[in-house]
């Protein structure tokens, strides 16, 4: 029998609260039916949550060690899925990110984030003594390049870039030398002009607009300007649920997915936004406690990757809605509409709980 005594219930409650907030925002974002969105967004998101609970249970029941053992298999499947996207994927907003499987539109790049964390944990946990040498970084880099390149080629700059902090934090925990990592980081930044040429036109535009949103106020800059107006006009207490004019009158593009935080900021104000950020913060701190308590290096690595991923997504998503970061398509965990994103974060939580639940065995 599986022992659920070590299960971190606080973490589960936090996820439920954040998800509930997300549903309320989604309801508000799709409230005005005269505008493109329909209310079924809430229903669909809720049903994905139900399915997601089963997935979570699966990833909770199976020992995470076994999951890590399957890391390379999943890695292969993940890369295959990314290939399929490039070959057959649907195109939305100029990017091929979705494949249809059994009637569902699935976004493999989302799942590849968690697969990447698992495979890195598998490799680094096994061979961390080699990391003292700079050549030890070679295999992790080789593991990183295929998913990174394939995701970037979709193109999905945001998701591809998430792999970088995960890579560095996991190597850091695994025992990589700080000077090596720094050198690698500098190399990465130095080679960014090459990536600039690989970027699609709209991505270049977004980065330029980040530097000056008013350069193209009706085009690429429109989203960020409207988002800042929404959040700023919310003030301390917000305009009230279902009463955000920027939201209800459709001035906010992408408000049910990447820009859902703008709805929070406009309708719930500074205090509401602060509360949501606080919830994320507590969640991450709980996760860090789990990592700290576990003695197993695989568990530590897995947990570190997941915490990094979640923290990075929360930070970049919110920062871009207030203009602190360029607009890259990164969803807000548990809140942005989308099944693949929701399931990926639920798997992440399941793995965290899994690590926390089983630490006593070692």
């Amino acid at each position: 029998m599986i022992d659920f005594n070590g299960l971190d219930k606080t973490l589960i409650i936090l996820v439920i609260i954040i998800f509930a907030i997300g549903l309320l925002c989604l309801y508000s974002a799709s409230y005005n039916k005269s505008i493109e969105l329909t209310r079924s967004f809430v229903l669909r998101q809720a049903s994905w949550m139900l399915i997601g609970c089963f997935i979570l249970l699966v990833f909770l029941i199976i020992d995470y060690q076994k999951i890590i053992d399957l890391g390379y298999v999943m890695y292969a499947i993940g890369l295959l899925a990314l290939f399929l996207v490039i070959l057959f994927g649907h195109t939305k907003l100029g990017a091929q990110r979705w494949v249809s499987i059994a009637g569902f539109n699935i976004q493999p790049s989302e799942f590849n984030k968690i697969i990447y964390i698992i495979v890195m944990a598998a490799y680094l946990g096994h061979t961390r003594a080699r990391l003292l040498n700079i050549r030890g970084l070679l295999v992790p880099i080789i593991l990183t390049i295929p998913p990174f390149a394939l995701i970037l080629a979709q193109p999905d700059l945001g998701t591809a870039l998430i792999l970088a902090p995960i890579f560095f934090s996991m190597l850091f925990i695994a025992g990589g030398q700080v000077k090596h990592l720094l050198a690698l980081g500098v190399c990465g930044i130095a080679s960014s002009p090459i990536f600039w040429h690989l970027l699609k036109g709209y991505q270049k535009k977004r980065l330029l607009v980040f530097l000056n949103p008013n350069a193209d106020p009706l085009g690429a800059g429109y989203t960020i300007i409207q988002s800042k107006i929404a959040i700023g006009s919310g003030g301390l207490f917000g305009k009230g649920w279902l009463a955000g004019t920027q939201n209800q009158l459709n001035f906010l593009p992408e408000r049910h997915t990447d820009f859902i935080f703008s709805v929070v900021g406009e309708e719930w104000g500074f205090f509401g936004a602060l509360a949501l950020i606080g919830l994320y913060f507590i969640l991450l701190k709980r996760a860090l406690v789990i990592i700290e308590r576990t003695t197993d290096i695989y568990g530590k690595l897995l947990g570190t990757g997941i915490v990094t991923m979640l923290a990075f997504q929360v930070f970049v998503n919110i920062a871009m809605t207030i203009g602190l970061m360029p607009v890259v398509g990164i969803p807000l965990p548990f809140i942005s509409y989308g099944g693949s994103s929701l399931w990926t974060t639920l798997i992440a939580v399941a793995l965290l709980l899994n690590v926390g639940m089983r630490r006593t065995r070692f």
Partner: protein
Amino acid sequence: MKIKFISALISILFAILVAGLGYTQILRHKKYLVLSQNNRIRLVSIEGQRGRIYDRNSTLLVGNTPSFDVFVIPQELERSVDTLSRLAQMLGILPQEVFDAVQKNYTAPFAHILIKEDIIKEKVLMLEEARLCGVMVKVRPRREYKFKETASHALGYLGEIDRGELERLKGYGYQIKDFVGKTGVEKNYDTYLRGEQGGVQLEVDNRGFAVRSLGTKEGAQGRDLTLTIDIRLQEFIENLFFNKGGAVVVMGAATGEVFALVSKPDFDPNVFLRKERKVEVSGLLTRPDRPMFNRAISGLYPAGSVFKPIVAAAGLERKHINSGTSFSCAGRYNLGENIFECWDNKGHGPQDVRHALKNSCNVFFYQLGRAAGVDDIALFASRFGYGVPCGIDLAEEASGLVPNRLWKRLVKKEAWFEGDTVNLSIGQGYLLVTPIQVARMMAVFANGGSLVQPYVVKNIGGVDIITGRCKNTGISKGTLDVVKNGLWSVVNDETGTGRRAKAEGLSISGKTGTAQSPKGQNHAWFSGFSPSDEPKIVVTVFIEHGGKGGLEAAEIAGKIFAEAGRRGLL
């Protein structure tokens, strides 16, 4: 240890987020709040009804009638072109016209576009029954000039505000596409007549489509005006003119209130309010006989003999002559080598000032004029109100011209010659006057020495206003009586030049004038007052190329006096 490092890093990132949110939502809240309001709120103005205009007997002259106008609301229009084609068919116009109207006048999805003005009631019913999506019939008040051409110059007309006016009036709530008074009372009293602008606040979505109305402020009606004009008298006078050009001023002798202000040819102000009558408008604006031109206050003409009472007054007042002083007329007057003729070359013989006025004898006035000198004549002309606008409450009034030595030196670069004085003595030469100035001059004799300020509006929104201020000219009663005596003889003497002005049962005094026109036939003048002993009204008639003032002009004046008597103005 390493976990602590990552934990600290996460804390820093979240602190950045909180700081960023605080900056956006607290420090810059006001700015973004304004921007969000600007995003969603649009103001659509509603014109308040313009004030009505009544004549002195409360007859409605200018009102507002409901006009059924067809509008299209782009946002409610179904995507297909079908609606517009059907609309065109029902209105009986080409579909292309409708498409063009929509395309040209599109400003915002919620802004109504005018397709056709003033459709008939049957078509309104038809459209209502058809229930075309995005098509609506709105009832708008449209200005209506009930008497059409009658008093058109005094009333004026409306037109779309032009750039200069907008620039000047922007601060007073005037907006682009507003209709404003262009001439007459409509222009001078525009700020009173103008309705207070109301508006609807609309909430719009990102495409500019109206979502709901946030509030409506009804426009307030403008203030009504009551004029001093008697529209029946005005109509009567205009009918006397047939198709001649000219002007008539009928004015209170002591008050300056204008009972009739006629300028012919005239125009129908209704034309300017209809898009489909554009052709007529351009016709009015370009016709060589200038129907838009208000001859009564803007037309500049030589005064001719109606100027003679001033020369007489100057002579008497300055003691160059007295009532018994005679000059002899042999039908002509020699000045050096120049010969100035009297209008009657048989000559009038010796005569005093009364007879000279009665006969309108040029030779008498040549001699009197020379005796008085240009300085005194010019001085008295100014005292009688010539050379300056009379201050009537209508725009575009002309000043006229009283020549003198200095003027001739500055403008003509020549010295003043005695011949100029001779010409000035009979109201010819450089002298230019407007019909209303002549009326005002005649009023000075009539009322015993006051220079009145003519006005046409006597009541604004129920409040009586006093616009006419009188100024004492300081002319002595003796002088005025002598001249008045002469003016009485003009009409009432068997041989008086203005005897045709006589009207039964009325005592009338006056002066005729025949002014040489630079081209064509002479202009005819008659200016007089009645009753002769206690004058109530002054009538000035001017007929362009009307020949001798003693003929038609005097006749018309007599009919006007008679009509004014019937209408109780005497």
